[in-house]
């Protein structure tokens, strides 16, 4: 356990530095002006989870800018789960369509990246050839490995994420629970006021992983692929869930389908908690009048499950030049600053502040924290991607059919 409790700013720097060098050397020098020239006039179909109006508006803004500046048309294809786009790329491969694919850019991470990478369905490596790639925060271990798998320049870090619990400060006036046992005690004392999105929802599965990282006897084991010891390793998680479920919202017989649905439940007053991957989620939602201003955020004291989310280009995209131009723009200090602004999206940046000029740093505001977002704390790395389907299946066997 101890080995995982390192402060994330100082983690794994050496391992990353080694990877950077090899990847950079492999990609050589790309003539970026030629890429921008080839991109002009192309249309980029960008498949992304479309369930949040604020994110959709941010992408629409980026679309306006790249149209004006680079002559690239950006079309957001909203999906309810990015796995739909992964399925489509697989279907196109099966149908023999090696060019003219329907997806040009996709927002992924974790097991979706793993399955595309394993099947050789990704374009690249391309990331290190982007002019803005040098601004990436090389000290962030979640940027070079995605759920323990090396990204190998096949996907570009777009934003950071820390698993965050939000609670209603009007209902919980004392200091909130910050470890599994305290949370369980709170749940028992307040029946029907806690819940989590139903796995395999992304946030729901992440909650399982976060709890498992906190509860497992040897959390380092989760960095290796799943094997026959799955039941032993995960037993503490099921014990915790068995104890909590009878006291959850709807007695654990129904769950919200997604984090935004739980946000609505919190906003209407049906529950007191919201789980999300974006630490600024509540701050943005309060501004947008989706949540009351009594909402506060908290991380588990031992550490928050953290990862980055990425952009990747499928192997059969006919607009890979324009897709790279869009990606490079999304990595620019101006685009990243707007993304981290809670007036727009509030998603943490992937850029290293030290790599920016003072003027660029100023775009990110004063850095003052709003009342609804938790202070940054220790980082817990994502388990190996094979744990995701295994946990989802085990959850559905235990709780999915009652």
């Amino acid at each position, binding site marked *: 356990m101890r080995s995982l409790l390192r402060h994330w700013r100082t983690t794994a720097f050496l391992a990353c530095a080694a990877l950077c060098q090899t990847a950079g050397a492999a990609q050589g020098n790309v003539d970026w002006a030629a890429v921008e020239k080839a991109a002009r006039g192309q249309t980029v*179909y960008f*498949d992304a*989870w*479309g*369930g*949040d*109006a604020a994110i*959709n*508006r941010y992408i*629409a803004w980026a679309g306006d800018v790249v149209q004006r500046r680079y002559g690239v048309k950006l*079309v957001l*294809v*909203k*999906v*309810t789960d990015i*796995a*739909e*786009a*992964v*399925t*489509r790329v*697989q*279907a*196109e491969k099966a*149908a023999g*369509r090696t060019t*003219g694919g329907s997806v040009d850019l996709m927002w992924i991470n974790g*097991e*979706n990246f793993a*399955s595309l990478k394993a099947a050789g369905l990704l374009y690249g490596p391309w990331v290190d050839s982007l002019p803005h790639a040098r601004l990436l925060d090389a000290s962030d271990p979640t940027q070079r490995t995605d759920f323990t798998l090396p990204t190998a320049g096949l996907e570009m870090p777009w934003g950071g994420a820390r698993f965050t619990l939000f609670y209603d400060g009007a209902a919980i006036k004392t200091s909130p629970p910050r470890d599994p046992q305290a949370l369980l005690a709170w749940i028992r004392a307040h*029946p*029907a006021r806690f819940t989590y999105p*139903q796995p395999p929802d992304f946030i729901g599965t992440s909650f399982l992983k976060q709890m498992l990282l906190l509860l497992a006897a040897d959390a380092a084991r989760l960095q290796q692929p799943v094997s026959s010891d799955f039941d032993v390793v995960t037993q503490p998680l099921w014990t915790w869930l068995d104890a909590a479920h009878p006291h959850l*919202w*709807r*007695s654990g*017989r*129904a*769950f*919200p*389908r*997604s*984090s*935004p*649905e739980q946000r*609505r*439940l919190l*906003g*209407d*007053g*049906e529950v007191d908690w919201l789980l999300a991957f974006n630490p600024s989620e509540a701050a943005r939602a309060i501004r947008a*009048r*989706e949540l*009351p201003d009594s909402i506060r955020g908290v991380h588990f004291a031992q550490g928050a499950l953290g990862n980055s989310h990425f952009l990747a280009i499928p192997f059969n995209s006919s607009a890979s030049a324009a897709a790279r131009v869009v990606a490079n723009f999304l990595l620019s200090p101006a685009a990243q600053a707007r993304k981290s602004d809670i007036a727009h999206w509030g998603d943490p940046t992937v850029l290293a502040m030290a790599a920016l000029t003072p003027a660029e740093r100023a775009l990110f505001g004063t850095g003052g924290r709003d009342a609804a977002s938790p202070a940054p704390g220790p980082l817990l790395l994502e388990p190996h991607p094979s744990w995701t389907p295994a946990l989802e299946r085990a959850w*559905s*066997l235990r*709780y*999915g*059919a*009652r």
Partner: protein
Amino acid sequence: MKGLPIALLLFVGVGPVVAGFMGTVLGGLSASAWHELLLEPGLPIAALLAIGTGVVSTLIALTLAHVAVAVAFSRLRHTTLRLAALPTLATPHVAIAIGLVLLLSPSGLVLRALSPWATGFEQPPDWATVQDSLGLALTLGLIVKEVPFLILVLLGALSQVPASRLVTQGRVLGYGVFKTWFVAVAPLLQRQARFATAAVLVFGLTNVEMSLALGPTTPPTLSLLVWSWFTDANLATQSKAYAGALLLLLISVAVVGLVAGMATSVVRQRWQAWATNGDRVPSLNLDGMAARNASRVALGLGGAALGALLIRSVGGTWRFPSVWPAQLSIAAWTQGISDMQRAVTASVTVGLAATVIAIGIVLAVAEALHDSPLARRRLAVLLFIPLVIPQMAFLFGMQTMLLRLHLDGTWCGVLWSHLLFVLPYAWVVLAEARAQLSPGYRIVSRTLGAGPVTTWVRILLPQLLRSILIAAGLCFAVSMALYLPTQFAGGGRIVTVTTEAAVAMSSGDLRSAASYGVMQALLPLAVFAVTAGVSRRLFTHRQGMPT
């Protein structure tokens, strides 16, 4: 020459279904896939849920629709009933489902209106009033949505049944209004409406969009399980999904077969015994019947769901138990305006194109087959296949077909997928209407020297115009509501108001979902209003035109 429109109709309306179905069968015929499927936790419960909600909702909706039509007939209030049914009929399933959630959930409008003064609740109670594990909310939602559809189908069938004569005869023989109607008229009406009833039943068994909002989650209905497998990135799960789609098909065929079998054996015997037992119970009065109020409630709930959508789409933070949002905000409307425009444009263009093409093809075929009832019946069976087998059983295969034709993600691909579902409705309204026209008009016209085209345009078309307008409204509403076909053929690139509503709904963004839901209802209502207005203008001063 006659064969050309028929061939076109079969190619457009049946071809993709066959191709798609073959694709699904090939994908699902693997022992390991079925093994995986049968090992799925909760599969029996998921299947029972689908069957239970589908069958119960169809039976109740059918009963309520018959009662409503009987009452309207006895009081000559067809038009009122048709108008009352329109808002819910025009509103697609997704929107009705979202509206019902906003109305009935523990933090919904109903409990807000009663809290805390009557209930004492300061916080929403932990009641499973939606997504309950028995699927009651889902059943209610299906009833609310299907009653208006069945009412319109039955009202449409009235013209093909000598209802007035039968009712008069029954009354003369001393039977009450209720018994006369259900013994003499209802069975004839039901015979006309049997395809529509089967379509309602299969939709109830296999729908995704209503169970998404109202159905239970642990486990969900079988159709939702299959849908989630199809969208799984894991290839092994995909073949399980094909097997699941085939299982869904088997269940649908079995249930429809069973219900049809019961209707022609047990139910028919009981009905005949009731008809011939000579009882003339005057106390069975239509006015006092609970069912009549129930059908009013069903129609009213549809309207209330629409109202709830409208309020939520402009509501900001909204804590329980306030009946009204703390702030009003038109952000959901204004901020998404460009997305909304894109979606509305796609919905309207696809809907209008599908309507015009479907009516054109069907009119040509109806003309060719107006004196061959057997051929019409056979064609109707073929055309109804997309409605009476689960959409998922052929849509996945059809997606592959469109992929190979390079039509996936195109406007044309979506249009084609919509035609599959629009054509049968156009056929139901227009083929019979054409066949019912008295042959004398045509014969006289031809005898007087008019050519076939002139005869059709000057003599037959005016008589068909009212039916054409009804078909246009119906076709547009059907196209507007299609979710799965749009999602598959459009691949997310062609975005309609309905797919936007579903994306917003499935991610829990109720404000955006509500704004799209309102638009979903408004567009078909506008088309209905236009067709009704045109119809009134054209026929005000003409008596005896076919209705």
